[in-house]
């Protein structure tokens, strides 16, 4: 249940179910990371610091009243966009992509911030629009979504770009996007697919999609990842090979075992039973978010909870889809589990905001 602990002068706002399950996932993540990194204690400690810091951050983020976020959502968005532009100029280039901004103590993946600030801003922008959303607001919203997507896409980071794009679309959809608009634009999208293919995708992205469609096409090129991931998952069997016993991860057959493909490590070492337990925690979190959205105090809170929880769900599903070989390989971490501070912190902030939206009750309106 939503908790509001009343002390003498102030209240503490948090949701114990979300808090416990998120903490549980984070701790499990550290445990998996130790195995996936082949016992690299430094990596685990670094991640543990992020977890600790993140949990505190989540707690603090959940304290302000939703109105605070509503009021400053525009500012947050502008700051996020500035950070992204700064990344484009000052960012560290790793593997041909400029995604990280060096803050001295920590490299921030700035696109992770905007996947929170964009849905909040859109919720604030759309919460009091009459239904269905007018064409003007629809196009303004879409323009903003596309701009943000384009900025991230240029880094290039197609995966995060898609999540941000989807985050915006979710809020727009939940806010009451007209069905007519949905059907028309979907039709147009299908028709424009060849154009997107030819003009917007990088050759390596096209290759990834082609490989996805026919993995036998090039067994040691881009589908190497998928093949090794499938071998890792499949060889885990029902019960798994045991903690730190996964040969695919430990002998480096599995690429990106600590980040994008950590799910394959878990599947290899803990088997189908292990991943069922893990995924049921994720599923519980999503159901809890659904419940919280239904019981939120107003439209802004509902939209924000819905939007942010769907960002979380999309990230998870894109990651899973990629690891089990259903979706093309786009860089996408498993939320709360994969190594990487930016992704971790952004989800803690997101859940902090969800808790804020869910636990603050509005004084009865006169």
């Amino acid at each position: 249940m939503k908790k509001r602990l009343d002390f003498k002068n102030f209240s503490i706002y948090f949701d114990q179910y979300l808090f416990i399950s998120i903490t549980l996932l984070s701790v499990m993540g550290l445990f998996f990371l130790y195995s996936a990194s082949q016992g690299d204690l430094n990596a685990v400690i670094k991640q543990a610091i992020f977890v600790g810091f993140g949990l505190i951050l989540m707690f603090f983020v959940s304290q302000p009243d939703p109105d605070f976020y509503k009021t400053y959502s525009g500012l947050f968005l502008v700051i996020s966009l500035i950070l992204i532009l700064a990344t484009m100029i000052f960012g560290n280039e790793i593997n041909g992509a400029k995604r990280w901004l060096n803050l001295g103590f920590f490299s921030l993946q700035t696109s992770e911030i905007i996947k929170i600030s964009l849905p909040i801003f859109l919720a604030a922008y759309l919460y009091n629009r009459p239904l269905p959303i007018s064409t003007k607001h629809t196009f303004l919203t879409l323009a903003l979504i596309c701009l943000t997507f384009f900025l991230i896409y240029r880094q290039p980071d197609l995966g995060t770009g898609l999540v941000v794009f989807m985050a915006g679309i979710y809020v727009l959809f939940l806010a009451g996007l007209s069905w007519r608009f949905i059907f028309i634009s979907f039709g147009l999208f299908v028709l424009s697919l060849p154009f997107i293919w030819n003009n917007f995708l990088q050759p390596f992205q096209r290759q990834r999609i082609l490989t996805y469609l026919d993995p036998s096409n090039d067994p040691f090129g881009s589908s190497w990842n998928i093949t090794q991931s499938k071998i890792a998952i499949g060889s885990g069997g029902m019960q798994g090979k045991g903690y730190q016993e996964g040969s695919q991860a430990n002998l480096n057959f599995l690429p990106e075992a600590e980040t994008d493909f950590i799910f394959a490590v878990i599947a290899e070492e803990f088997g189908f039973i292990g991943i069922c337990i893990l995924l049921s925690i994720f599923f519980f979190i999503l159901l809890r978010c659904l419940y919280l959205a239904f019981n939120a105090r107003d439209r802004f809170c509902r939209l924000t909870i819905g939007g942010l929880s769907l960002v979380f769900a999309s990230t998870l599903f894109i990651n899973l889809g990629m690891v089990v070989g259903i979706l093309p390989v786009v860089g996408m971490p498993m939320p709360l589990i994969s190594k990487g501070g930016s992704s971790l912190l952004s989800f803690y902030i997101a859940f902090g905001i969800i808790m804020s939206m869910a636990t603050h009750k509005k004084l009865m309106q006169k």
Partner: protein
Amino acid sequence: MIDLEERYIEKKSFFNRLIIVYVFFSIVFSYFLYKAYSLQVYEYGEYESAALENKTKEVLVQPVRGIIYDRNGTIIVNNIPTYDLIIKPWLISNLEAFLNELQMIIEIDDSNLDYVKENFKIKASYNRELTVKKNLSSKEIARFEVRSYKFPNAFIDERYSRKNYYPNLFSHSIGYVGGMDNYQLENIFKNQGITQSETIFKYSNGYQIGKTGIESTYDKELRGLFGKKIYEVDARGKLLKELKFIPPINGNNLFTSLDIEAQKIAFEQMNDRRGAVVAVEIDSGSIVTYISTPSFSTNEISNGISSKEFNKLVNDKNKPFFDRASQGRYSPASTIKPAIGLFGLENNIIDWDFSIDDPGFFVLPEDQRVYRGWREGGHGNVNLERAMIVSSNTFFFSLAYKSDINILIDYLSNFGFGKKVCVDCFNPDVGLLPDPEWKMNNLNFGWFKGDTVNLGVGQGYLSATPLQLAYYSSILANRGELKKLSFIGQDSTATEEIPLKNINNNDWNRMHKSMIGVIESYEGTAKRLQDLKTYTVAAKSGTVELVSTDTKEDYKIIRENEGNRDHAIIIAFGPMPNPEYAVSVVIENGESGGSVAGPVAIAVLNSLIKK
């Protein structure tokens, strides 16, 4: 401010839409779960073995080839170890320092140093060994071994090379080993049910296969079976640890029937003349001497020969690579006469008392064509025994004239002509036993009576290899029955028997007596051999006419060219009356079977019979 009605509609729309998205996600979620289930449960076996295959690497371990012995247990071909200094690059942190320290003990030349420096990094990162110096001297080995505690990252390892202790004596019988093409290699691996992969070699020359001779025919037995080392590897192929070692099964040693002493004698006697010597232990059909000259050194061929040297051998007009013993075709000439005589007896065309008057030539009644003997004026009255001793052509011309060609051909094949007579000889030729059908097909002529007459003295189209002549000699010695020839004298080889109805032991005795007369009689064609031995030998010499001449004067003219001179040929067996060994000798352009080929045959028999 939105009114309550609108708030309700808005809330309902929101819930519906959120539920739609959640339902969609639930479906996707279920699909992922199903996908994971099918990977981990339905296809588990497939992926489990894929993971296993990923992390294990099989490295083959080459077996050592079997040793080849002579019939007295003396080693002919052995594996000689050379000692190489090998390092483990992944255990060496500072290569320069390591090499400096190593060079204080063992001198390493610049080309080796460069090779090590060039390959060090990659070998280190894959945990592979690296050879620093080959062929260490015993002094270097000693210097290293006493300091080996200082070098846990280096060791001395044996690498073999195949060595024949008598490199020129067994060039054609045992042959040599060498590299092979991919097809052969694949076959070897396929037969053993393994796939080709990285190999730990025992031979410095790598994969080896018998190329010729016994090394080739017994390659499968000599080769052995590859062993395996199974390593755990990481994704880069770096060897992490040895999981399992299945040792190779080294090749079987091979005890041949060859006799080193007799080989030496035969080789020395041939003295680089072109020709061949084959001797057989009659009882077992095993080949004890097998020489083709001139010869070459097999060690150079198997362990590296300069292309200049090689070309010299290939282009040598005496053709040292050519195995005259099993591939050289020679007319048997007069050595065929015992078989023709036996044919006459078997078919009741003649008996031992039958005689003719030999004027020195035979006139073919059909066309008055004259067939000459070797001696002008002839041999006077000759019966079969005397015809053998003096080698009367006329007697055998007339005997052949009375014969049916098809029955004769059939009969001659019993003596090994036109047949494979050896079970394990390398690529043997079967010679030519001509019949009317062959002549029509190949020369487009019908069979003339004259062809049959020529066959009676072993001239014309008939040809045989020295190996076949040795078989023939043996079967004569053994009274019509013999095991097929082999290099290892197998007991399992079936005995071949000439079907004889009208020839009894007495006939064989008289045939042997006639052949003894060839040497022992005052008018025998090989009487010069009498004093070369201390026991009795039966023989039949022959002189293969390469150019047909009517008179001795004509021959003197054509013999100016060495290549036109007659081949000398002899078959012999002894000691009589119970022969143990039979031999055949062919010396190209040697002119006289009795006096040129004969001494070689006697020397070989001497060497064999002494024992």
